[in-house]
């Protein structure tokens, strides 16, 4: 296990380095003189130069690159070009908001997906199974912003509809009061993601139902509910867990479209605004944050699977 953990952590660090390098490379291709852009066309050349020097943008690229890596290691992302605020707290706030939305989406997605998949497996090749598989295939191929716009049109488009098209709850809204704001964007993502989970669960359950231990359990006279809980699901959910881990990453990637449709101020909106304002510190910090979440989610899933199913550990030894 220790060996596996080390190997997996090493890979995570390589990925992080790759991500930081790509972001640095892309962001530094952006044309233009940062100092001139921030200070405006009427600032004196002297103050522009001084500002550039202060930011370090006049130093050689290699120095800027190594500085960007140390900044990442210390979670210091500098100040925003457009508002001069410190970037780190702003990104933390946005991350928290996005996590709230992604968390709700996950709470909706996972039980629906597992229930639909297990139900379909027990009705294998019957109408209910076909319907669930086809629905999952159709909805999981749609982009999140498409399901989001359809939900807004259906449920949020009149003055007296319960759900809101603007997902940002006003400050001080109670925990349960936030529900009518966050439910629809969460659902928009759940519709896209439940299909994968249902599909994987269905395959796992079908396998486990055909296994000898399930037959034995049925012969022993256990009720079908007990067989499902004690024998089938326990063995069938390994692949499901790995998919959920990957989903958390996708949720954060796909959240951009949903946040835009619902005008929600999370990481996605932060990224889109930063692109509009050419605010490089915010842009790189937000993209790196999404990348780190993405990476941690897959890492957690891999470790969890290895722990549940030690056969995985043998694979890495070879």
């Amino acid at each position, binding site marked *: 296990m220790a060996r596996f953990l080390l190997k997996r952590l090493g890979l995570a660090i390589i990925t992080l380095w790759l991500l930081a390098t*790509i972001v640095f490379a*892309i962001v530094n291709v952006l044309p233009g003189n940062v100092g001139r852009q921030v200070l405006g066309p009427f600032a004196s050349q002297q103050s522009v130069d001084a500002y550039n020097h202060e930011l370090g943008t006049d130093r050689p690229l290699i120095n800027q690159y190594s500085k960007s890596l140390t900044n990442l290691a210390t979670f210091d992302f500098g100040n925003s070009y457009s508002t001069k605020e410190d970037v780190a707290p702003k990104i933390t706030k946005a991350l928290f908001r996005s996590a709230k939305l992604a968390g709700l989406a996950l709470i909706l997605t996972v039980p629906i997906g597992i229930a639909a998949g297990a139900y379909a497996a027990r009705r294998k090749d019957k109408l209910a199974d076909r319907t669930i598989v086809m629905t999952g*295939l159709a909805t999981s191929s749609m982009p999140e*912003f498409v399901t989001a*716009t359809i939900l807004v049109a259906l449920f949020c488009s009149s003055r007296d509809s319960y759900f809101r098209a603007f997902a940002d709850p006003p400050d001080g809204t109670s925990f349960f009061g936030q529900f009518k704001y966050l439910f629809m964007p969460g659902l928009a993502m759940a519709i896209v993601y439940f299909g994968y989970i249902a599909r994987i669960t269905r395959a796992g359950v079908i396998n486990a139902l055909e296994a000898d231990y399930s037959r034995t359990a049925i012969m022993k006279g256990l009720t079908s509910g007990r067989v499902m809980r004690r024998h089938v699901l326990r063995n069938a959910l390994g692949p499901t867990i790995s998919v959920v881990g990957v989903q958390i990453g996708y949720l954060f*990637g796909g959240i951009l479209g949903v946040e*835009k449709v619902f005008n929600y101020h999370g990481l996605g909106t932060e990224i889109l605004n930063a692109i509009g304002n050419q605010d490089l510190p915010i842009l790189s910090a937000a993209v790196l944050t999404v*990348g780190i979440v993405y990476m941690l989610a897959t890492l957690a899933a891999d470790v969890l699977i290895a722990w549940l199913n030690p056969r995985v550990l043998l694979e890495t030894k070879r």
Partner: protein
Amino acid sequence: MSLDPEPVPTVVDPVTPNVNVVAGERKQARRENFRLLIKRPGFVIGALVSLFWVVCAIFGDAITPYDPLNFRTTKHLKPFGKYIFGTDQSGRDIVSRVMAGARDVLIVAPPAAIFGVLAGTMLGLIMGYFGGWVDSVLSRVVDAFLALPVLLIALLALVTLGKSRVVVIIVVSILFAPVVSRTIRAAVLAERDLDYVTSARLRGEGSIFIMFREILPNVSGPIVVELTVRIGYAVFTIATLSFLGVGPPPPSPDWGAQVSDGYGVLSAGIWWPTIFPALAIATLVIAVNLMADAVQSVLEG
């Protein structure tokens, strides 16, 4: 030491496969697969819907009821009247714009998928065939790439490199290649120790020949599956990118851009400028995925 090789035996070499027989069998298998495919309702429906959008993309404003770009009438006219899908915020006919918008997606998504699969196949062949340190190093790089959020990296790259179609195709195909390479690598690993590869090696064939003439035809199944699946993902990714603002500039009738232009008035009850292009995206991705699903179950049993 003589440079002359061993005398070549005049009898038919038993190790060299009879090319004609193999090619004939392959042709027959392909015909059989096609017959299985068109028996599946999912494939037929997917193919018909995709064909409709391809026709729209090819003929564009030649078959739309009105000019998708320059025709102007009253703005936000309701649908199902004189203008079937209504008019948008500039008074343009939405049905014409939705039909013409198929071109913006279909001119970019399939090439991106094709180049991504080509690059991924090359990479997968190299990793699977050579194995050893080549495979170890490339696999680590691929794993690292797989942990990157595709959409975000594409977004960043397009913002900096420009939004031209060529850039979209290149960026999306580079981001797709690692996923494809993993699948192909697994397929190649299953082939490389089989007798036909060993005998080709004993015949003295070079690595390039073995990879492309011996192994490649035998992993064509997974390649075709990857290609159909990737086209679906490419439509998904490219539509999302243009919704996020890095698609073709206005007044292009691109679907994602139309949704982006119209979603602000959704909450005021003006749904038609957004929902029709959104449904167009949905029908195309679902159609492609229905085809991909059928291809996958036919080729992988």
